[in-house]
């Protein structure tokens, strides 16, 4: 990655900017509100289960996962990681969690609750409530439990089941999943009502839920458009636009409009056959969390004609599902998040795969998005985003003739991911992609 200043090989998208702006703006808003005395809540990403509820309560929600990434990008993470080690947390735990432990140690034990000066974006003030979720990984609730030694705030752990793939289709199982997810969300509402001493506005909740579902439907359509050849939107754009949906940033109604603009811009781009990179030689998939700290390296790859057309399953909205027949907004939430969790189960079952979430979606996408190669980015301290990669690599290669390039990294320890090395490997990997292109041809695939 030379230092010389040249225009990025990845085309810009106008509609991307408002969506990206939501991140800082809503952060700003929260900061001001909290400064004005509003209580802060720390929450795990919970894929639209707890989000709409907290929004309906008008709570100012901060996401330690996200904030840890910001600390990493800002260069203060190392300090917090050391604090975490000193506190005795094993160094193999999630890098985001360790950053958060270090930060909280500093916040409570050293600063007596005052945000430390080095904290980027005004920091995260002490919360009145911790909202954990058991979707996708144990860390995301064990982590908050571990904060108990620093924070005098209760933890609520949202339940979203993780049934087996074939078991999911057994009689009664789906409804039992809906039931626990609904009850858990209901209990969460009761819990917050008790904590705040005020009732939730159910109409407001219903409205938010419907907007949220519509927003994600449009966002889903946006990503469907990326199947076009050449693909009009690069993963870097996806990562910029995704937080609005994932963290329910800003006003959902506005967000719907913003995603619609993006959809229109992409349709137009497709019409004049404009791809996200100057010359699309290779269509790439990316798994899982990106190396936030060296995103520039995607430009270097774009120079070589690498277009990243699909990525991070966990950041994608669920396959749209019609819930108009469901009147209770809480049950709607439950069914919707469950759709995120199990939306690909049917496809997985048909393919006799038990990795209904995380793993199998990539196999399906590789085919739908006509992917030439998969960029695997296993993270040493993030098990849940790395566990399935070996299986995906083997399945893609065996069943679809799609090769993978394997580059280790970490959420916060940047030294682990070496962009120079990545580029060296990329050069050789192009050979593999050419090789497998022919293999796929021989095997009668259409890409």
């Amino acid at each position, binding site marked *: 990655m030379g230092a010389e200043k040249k225009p990025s090989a990845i085309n810009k998208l106008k509609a991307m900017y408002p969506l990206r702006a939501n991140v800082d703006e809503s952060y700003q808003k929260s900061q001001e509100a909290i400064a004005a005395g509003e209580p802060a809540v720390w929450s795990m990403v919970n894929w639209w289960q707890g989000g709409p509820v907290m929004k309906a309560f008008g709570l100012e929600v901060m996401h330690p996962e996200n904030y840890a990434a910001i600390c990493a990008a800002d260069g203060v993470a190392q300090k917090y990681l050391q604090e975490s*080690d*000193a506190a*005795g947390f*094993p160094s193999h735990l999630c890098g985001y969690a360790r950053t958060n432990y270090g930060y909280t140690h500093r916040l409570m034990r050293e600063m007596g609750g005052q945000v430390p000066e080095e904290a980027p974006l005004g920091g995260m003030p002490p919360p009145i409530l911790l909202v954990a979720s058991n979707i996708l990984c144990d860390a995301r609730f064990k982590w908050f439990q571990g904060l108990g030694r620093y924070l005098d705030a209760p933890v609520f752990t949202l339940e979203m089941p993780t049934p087996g793939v074939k078991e999911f289709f057994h009689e009664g199982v789906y409804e039992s999943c809906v039931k626990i997810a609904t009850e858990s969300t209901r209990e969460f509402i009761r819990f917050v009502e008790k904590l705040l001493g005020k009732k939730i506005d159910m109409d407001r909740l219903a409205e938010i839920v419907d907007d949220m579902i519509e927003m994600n439907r449009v966002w889903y359509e946006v990503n469907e458009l990326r199947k076009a050849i050449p693909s009009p939107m690069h993963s870097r754009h996806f990562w910029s636009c995704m937080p609005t949906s994932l963290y329910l940033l800003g006003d959902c109604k506005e967000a719907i409009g913003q995603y619609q603009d993006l959809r229109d811009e992409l349709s137009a781009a497709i019409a004049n056959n404009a791809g996200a990179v100057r010359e699309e030689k290779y269509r790439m998939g990316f798994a899982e969390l990106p190396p936030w700290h060296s995103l520039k390296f995607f430009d270097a790859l774009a120079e070589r004609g690498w277009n990243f057309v699909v990525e991070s399953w966990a950041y994608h909205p669920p396959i749209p599902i019609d819930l108009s027949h469901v009147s209770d907004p809480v049950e709607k939430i439950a069914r919707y998040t469950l759709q995120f969790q199990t939306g690909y189960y049917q496809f997985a079952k048909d393919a006799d795969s038990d990795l209904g979430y995380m793993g199998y979606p990539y196999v399906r996408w590789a085919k739908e998005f006509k992917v030439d190669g998969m960029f695997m980015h296993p993270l040493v301290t993030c098990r849940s985003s790395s566990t399935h990669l070996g299986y995906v690599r083997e399945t893609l290669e065996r069943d679809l003739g799609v090769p993978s390039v394997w580059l280790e990294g970490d959420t916060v320890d940047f030294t682990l991911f070496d962009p120079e090395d990545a580029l060296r490997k990329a050069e050789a990997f192009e050979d593999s992609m050419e090789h497998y292109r022919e293999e796929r041809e021989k095997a009668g695939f259409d890409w």
Partner: protein
Amino acid sequence: MYFVGLDIGSTMTKAVMVDDTREIVSTVVQQTGPEHRRLANKVIEQLLAEVSVPIEEVTFLVATGYGRINVPFADTQTTELTCHAKGVMYFFPSVGTAIDVGGQDAKGLRIRDGRLENFVMNDKCAAGTGRFLEVLADALAVRLDDLGPLSLKAKDPVTVASICTIFAQQEIVSHLSAGAPIEDVIAGVHDAVAGRCVRMTRALGIVPDVVLTGGVAKNIGFVRAVEERLGEPVRVPEDSLITGALGAALDARDRYHRATAKGEVKRKERKLTEAKFYE
């Protein structure tokens, strides 16, 4: 009564004799070195000769260090960890964290109210041990003792990216050929080793006072690098090499008195015979 501690390290063999008042009576430090590996008994002979005490008058002898199992004339063996803790506490009763960087390993010790509470060790890889410095001093054709003073002159320390000592060797050579001043390279090397030792010890939590022992603690540049990495001042005993052996001698005394209390004193017929390695 005399109590002896023998610490057989990879590079140095150390022996310390204390009397019943815990006073140090005699100390010997010698190169272990391949050809000396079998000469632990010579070290003891020297130790005894210095104060002309016959071997029979040694009440209790504890061997430690990674060669400890091979000492036929010892009453017992104690892990180097316990011995280092005891030795360090002798010099600095207020110690909270001790880092011992030996020739072939590095240890982090967490000490709380006079007890070894927890510890970490690296003996798998030369990076982060004194060995790293030896190898690189070699490559730089600088005497080990000169590393410290030289590194203090560093203006802009280089970064040593390679973890592997052997590859780091090449890396610094190319740093030099790229024109980096030797002081900067040495400082970079100190920082690399310090970084690994500190990173390892952090897992225990750093509690002052922090004490640095082992041969490398004689290297002022390294001590500074550790302080740099820790953001904490570091204390170094006058003789940073003997803490293990001293601890062993003190342990010998403790064990002897515990045994007598229990009424199970068994004096050992002591004969200085060779210690063998890799049976």
